[in-house]
């Protein structure tokens, strides 16, 4: 199978989406009959060309970071381009990967409804939406913390390469908890009381000499 992967991160090749897609693609290409091409939605000037590729493809996966509870503006821009260039008739099979900063899957469930409807709007067979939270920070984590996540994306890709579907058990495992459990909330509060939940941001604030200004309100009326 020939697969078109569209990366909808405003950070393009430097983002977390790119890392997850890299592992997915590696798994997918384990089947020698498969080939994959990746396009980046970061720049609006590339959208027309990519929309034409979309129309000609047999299967497409659009992956993006959750941005203000939905798709980044550039992804919406691309969807609008699709609406303009698309002729009548069926579209390729389409699936989505949404990854977010907050750990719970619930944050991405609302845009998932949109994506499912989008597939119907495009007359495209819907392959589903893979949701993964807690992804901001993976680039600062040591390998032992991300190993299982990357392995899960590789198996997701490998299964996709054989069955042309997202494996439901892997999808469920990746989405993990819909909401924080009582235990997680207690752990969060304990970490919060000793300043652990803000460690990542404090580290960067200090590195930039901005720690003292972290509560600034430049637009206070």
């Amino acid at each position, binding site marked *: 199978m020939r697969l078109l992967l569209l990366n909808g*991160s*405003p*950070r393009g090749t430097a*983002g977390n989406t790119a890392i997850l897609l890299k592992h997915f693609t590696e798994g997918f290409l384990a089947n020698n009959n498969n080939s994959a091409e990746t396009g980046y939605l970061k720049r609006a000037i590339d959208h027309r060309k990519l929309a034409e590729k979309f129309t000609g493809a047999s299967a497409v996966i659009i992956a993006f*970071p959750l*941005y*203000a*509870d*939905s*798709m*980044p*503006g*550039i992804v*919406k*821009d691309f*969807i*609008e381009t*699709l*609406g303009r260039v698309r002729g009548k008739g069926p579209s390729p099979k389409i699936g989505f990967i949404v990854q977010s900063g*907050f*750990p*719970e899957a*619930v*944050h991405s469930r*609302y*845009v998932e*409804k*949109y994506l499912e*409807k*989008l597939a119907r*709007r495009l007359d495209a067979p819907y392959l589903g939406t893979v949701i993964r939270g807690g992804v901001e920070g993976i680039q600062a984590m040591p390998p032992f913390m991300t190993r299982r996540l990357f392995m899960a994306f590789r198996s997701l890709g490998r299964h996709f390469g054989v069955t042309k579907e997202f494996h439901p058990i892997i999808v469920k495992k990746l989405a993990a908890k819909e*909401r*924080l459990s009582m235990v997680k*909330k207690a752990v*969060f*509060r304990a970490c*919060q009381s000793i300043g652990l*939940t*803000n460690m990542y*941001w404090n580290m*960067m*604030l200090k*590195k*930039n000499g*901005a720690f003292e*200004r*972290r*509560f*600034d*309100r*430049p*637009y*206070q*009326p």
Partner: protein
Amino acid sequence: MNIVILNGNPDPNARELERYIDALTAELAAKGHEVNAHTLRDMNIRSCTGCWSCWVKTPGMCAQHDDMPVVYTSVMAADLVLFASPIIMGFVSALLKRANERFIPLIHPYLVIDRGECHHLKRYTRYPELGLILHKGADADDEDIKITSDIYARIALNFKTTLRFSIQTSQPIQEALHAIAAA
């Protein structure tokens, strides 16, 4: 009330939403409200690049140089912000969405648990209430309106406020005025 309207209609020739906003603005002004309408398509609004400067380099300020500071100043002084957009491909315009995600400097990076979920800490003590004005058009249905309104209720939660109403340009201006008075 100080009311700000962010007009996310990308097409100056699509008049229905423009007429609705103009009529609403006139009625609100006649009632003594201060109304500031920003037509986003006439402004330079760049996409968020995800650089986090606004959280870790220049807290509260975006690194990009465009017209967003006008929006920030106006939004933070408002009691109510109305997001207005036609439904395009089932959602608000890319133009409005682009402006919405640039609101991230207005909140704080620190995490808190709010209503049992992870969210961010407030940066300011007070945030405006939100309302949605949607123009349905030929290509949209009630499901699109529901999906969009539900997402904006979530956006409001992350913007430390509440989506008070979602109205459509097919509804009489009076209904919009009632919704605004109740907000």
